[in-house]
């Protein structure tokens, strides 16, 4: 089941990757920067949000007008800022969703990597409310819908005794205070928690990518700007609580579940959200990890040079004071709770060189399950079986698609945990001892390393930009970094091998490592593909941000909203205590009358044209069953003339009503008829 889901996810990511491949250099493919792109979009949201804040008026009547002013009067600044604010937050959801899908389908969320996944889930719970409180603040008809539905959702929770939704049924009951509270949450409260949450999210990984590459930042910003100019964001008419908007352009990125509140019920929606959240939070343990043995330090070969600490992508290696009495100051220590056994530390260790034959090849740090010694032995075995001309050795990550595909071609393949597990001296060894004429490093597609930084470190080591680097004397044209080639998805391994084989035979004295790219294709197709890719992002962002529209009421319908709080009568009457009864009580508790506080439930019945459309018995609130009962219900009816009957009993009688009223109403289309109870006059009000 899990494998199936991951396979589906992977094919989605692969397809997207292939779609984007013509437009971007492999290191720039946006799929490799989904997390940092999300953060970048949030930066855009923050900056544009500050501009909006300056002009925003946090009051019932001022909110809408101030946003209208921003949108129309300062069209080319405020208007763009507003559009940017919306579209960047929408785009953040796209990248966030893809980010999750990718980490899930590439299985990068279990074992010791659970922490980032686990701390990432609550971030969604912060981001989504940030989105809908934002829509709320605009106070247009969409905001009205958001307000009412959010309130219905919150009312379902057993925290509030009184109905919050009632506030959004009529203008009279709405106060500016509410906007101040919302503005606080949207502008300060949630953003601060979000920043803290993001910090926690990347806390356990070393050198987290907070910013995407600059080219990508410029590209996405231009893309969002273009979208804001071509398709600016507008409000959808001022909120009018006396009317139900007919249909709304809903931002599906943030409000996806809102229509379900009407379609089913708040309880169903909460169940759905809670279920998904629990499932996501528990995902790293469904099933629990298959933990490989963590890296082990061998002090006889460790002098404390710290290179493993530099390269560990998960901060799992740290330096500690020397413990074996040697004159060194430090030694490497592995935290088994953080180590995910990628072996990148082995690739960084200067003593992990295969030229060591006098002593056993035991590096300062090594993987017990796939040691450097075992790698050297396998290298020799594989080398003996190499055929073809030139003899190309393939190195691929264990269990990867690349490994599977290359195995099918029958070529000699050395499986490693990660490309960066292989120290550059191994490549020197393989080539100088003529174990192979060329080595093709088939790392993770697009350089998107399963262990985050493996392909990056490998590229830098081979290009001699990072220690330990490939010795100058080694001809690095004989080493192919396959993930930087156009065919790095390994769909066609034979073609990749051919291309590499030819490049070895053709140009024996080139200097740069082979990237196997074809320049002609790049020059003509790239700009077009780039525009198309960003266009696609703009299109998806803009379209789903307010379409397809959501039909709230069918034509010719109106709504009756029943909303009031009323305390039922006492269950028992007060009675005066007799002297006997008083004597039995402790002296300090001898009250002359005893008034039990429990109340009757309030029963409500709504009939339209004689037909019962709503009937319920509402229990009193409060710990002692002595509070008010709260009624909130919306009913859809056809527009036109109706006989509306409302009855309520609060005395425990089984028939008839304590208060009842019937009126003739002529409901106009989309009218929102509010039925309330005035406790003073004991009469129902129809507004």
């Amino acid at each position, binding site marked *: 089941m899990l494998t199936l889901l991951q396979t589906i996810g992977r094919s989605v990511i692969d397809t997207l990757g292939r779609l984007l491949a013509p437009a971007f250099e492999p290191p720039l493919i946006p799929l490799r920067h989904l997390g940092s792109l999300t953060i970048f979009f949030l930066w855009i949201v923050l900056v544009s949000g500050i501009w909006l804040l300056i002009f925003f008026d946090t009051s019932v009547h001022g909110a809408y007008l101030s946003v209208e002013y921003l949108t129309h009067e300062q069209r080319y600044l405020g208007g763009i800022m507003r559009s940017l604010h919306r579209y960047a937050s929408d785009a953040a959801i796209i990248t966030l969703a893809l980010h999750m899908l990718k980490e899930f389908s590439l299985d990068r969320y279990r074992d010791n990597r659970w922490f980032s996944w686990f701390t990432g889930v609550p971030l969604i719970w912060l981001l989504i409310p940030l989105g809908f409180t934002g829509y709320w603040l605009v106070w247009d008809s969409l905001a009205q819908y958001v307000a009412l539905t959010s309130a219905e959702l919150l009312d379902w929770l057993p925290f509030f005794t009184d109905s919050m939704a009632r506030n959004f049924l009529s203008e009279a009951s709405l106060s500016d205070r509410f906007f101040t509270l919302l503005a606080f949450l949207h502008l300060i409260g949630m953003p601060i928690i979000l920043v803290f949450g993001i910090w926690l999210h990347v806390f356990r990984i070393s050198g987290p990518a907070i910013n995407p590459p600059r080219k990508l930042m410029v590209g996405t910003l231009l893309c969002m700007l273009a979208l804001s100019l071509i398709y600016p964001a507008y409000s959808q008419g001022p909120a009018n609580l006396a009317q139900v908007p007919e249909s709304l352009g809903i931002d599906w990125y943030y409000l996806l579940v809102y229509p379900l509140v009407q379609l089913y019920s708040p309880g169903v929606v909460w169940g759905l959200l809670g279920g998904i959240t629990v499932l996501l939070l528990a995902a790293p343990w469904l099933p629990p990890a298959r933990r490989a043995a963590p890296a082990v330090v061998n002090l006889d*070969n460790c*002098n*404390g*040079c*710290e*290179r493993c600490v530099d390269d560990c992508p998960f901060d799992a290696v740290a330096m500690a004071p020397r413990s074996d009495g*040697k*004159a*060194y*100051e*430090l030694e490497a220590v592995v935290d088994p709770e953080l180590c995910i056994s990628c072996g990148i530390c082995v690739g960084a260790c*200067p*003593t992990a*060189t295969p*030229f*060591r*034959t*006098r*002593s056993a090849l035991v590096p*300062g740090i090594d993987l017990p399950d796939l040691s450097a010694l075992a790698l050297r032995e396998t290298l020799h075995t594989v080398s003996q079986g190499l055929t073809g001309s030139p003899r190309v050795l393939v190195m691929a990550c264990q269990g990867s698609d690349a490994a599977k595909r290359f195995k099918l071609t029958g070529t000699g393949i050395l499986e490693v945990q990660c490309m960066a597990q292989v120290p550059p*001296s191994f490549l*020197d060894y393989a080539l*100088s*001892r003529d174990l192979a004429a060329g080595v093709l490093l088939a790392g993770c597609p697009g350089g998107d390393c399963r262990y985050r930084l493996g392909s990056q470190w490998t590229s830098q080591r081979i290009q001699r930009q990072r*220690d*330990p680097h490939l*010795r*100058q*004397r080694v001809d690095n044209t004989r080493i192919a970094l396959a993930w930087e080639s156009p065919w790095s998805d390994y769909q066609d391994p034979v073609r990749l091998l051919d291309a590499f084989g030819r490049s070895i035979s053709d140009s024996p004295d080139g200097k740069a490592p082979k990237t196997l790219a074809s320049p002609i294709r790049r020059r003509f197709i790239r700009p077009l593909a780039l525009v198309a890719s960003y266009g696609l992002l703009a299109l998806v962002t803009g379209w789903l941000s307010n379409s397809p529209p959501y039909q709230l009421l069918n034509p010719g319908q109106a709504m009756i909203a029943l909303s009031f709080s009323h305390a039922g009568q006492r269950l028992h009457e007060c009675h005066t205590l007799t002297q006997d009864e008083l004597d039995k009580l402790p002296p300090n508790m001898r009250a002359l009358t005893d008034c039990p506080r429990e109340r009757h439930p309030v029963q409500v019945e709504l009939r339209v044209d004689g037909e019962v459309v709503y009937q319920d018995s509402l229990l009193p609130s409060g710990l002692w069953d002595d509070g008010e009962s709260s009624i909130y219900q919306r009913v859809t009816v056809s527009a036109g003339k109706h006989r509306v009957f409302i009855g309520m009993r609060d005395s425990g009688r089984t028939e008839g009503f304590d208060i009842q009223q019937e009126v003739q109403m002529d409901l106009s289309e989309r009218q929102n008829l509010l039925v309330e109870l005035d406790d003073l006059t004991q009469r129902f009000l129809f507004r």
Partner: protein
Amino acid sequence: MTLLNWQAKYSVGVASVDYEHQRLIEMINELATEIEGSVYTDAIELFLGELHAAISAHFALEERAMAKADYEELEDHKADHEALLEQIRCMMDEFVADPENGRKLLQESLTNWFGQHFATFDARLHGALGE
């Protein structure tokens, strides 16, 4: 045969680096003895692999110490390290290809390498790191 002798003036002021310098000198002296007496070039080649690993590790540590001390000449010093490692690797290959020639080359180079590097680069390091 004792090619090199550790002297207090070689100290760079970092205990671990000094300790490794002494160990390397022991190793090189041992190698020199081996080349003198041995007819087995295999043994020498094996030893070179060992030396290469030890020196790589040592340079990594020394470069780290220099980086931590913000040593100004780190870049030049590192370049010399890299050149030395390149030479040792060439020597190792030479031993595989033509043992006799390799042996001759090695004898000429041994003192040069370390005498030179110690006298110039590590001497400048003296006292620059710590103490």
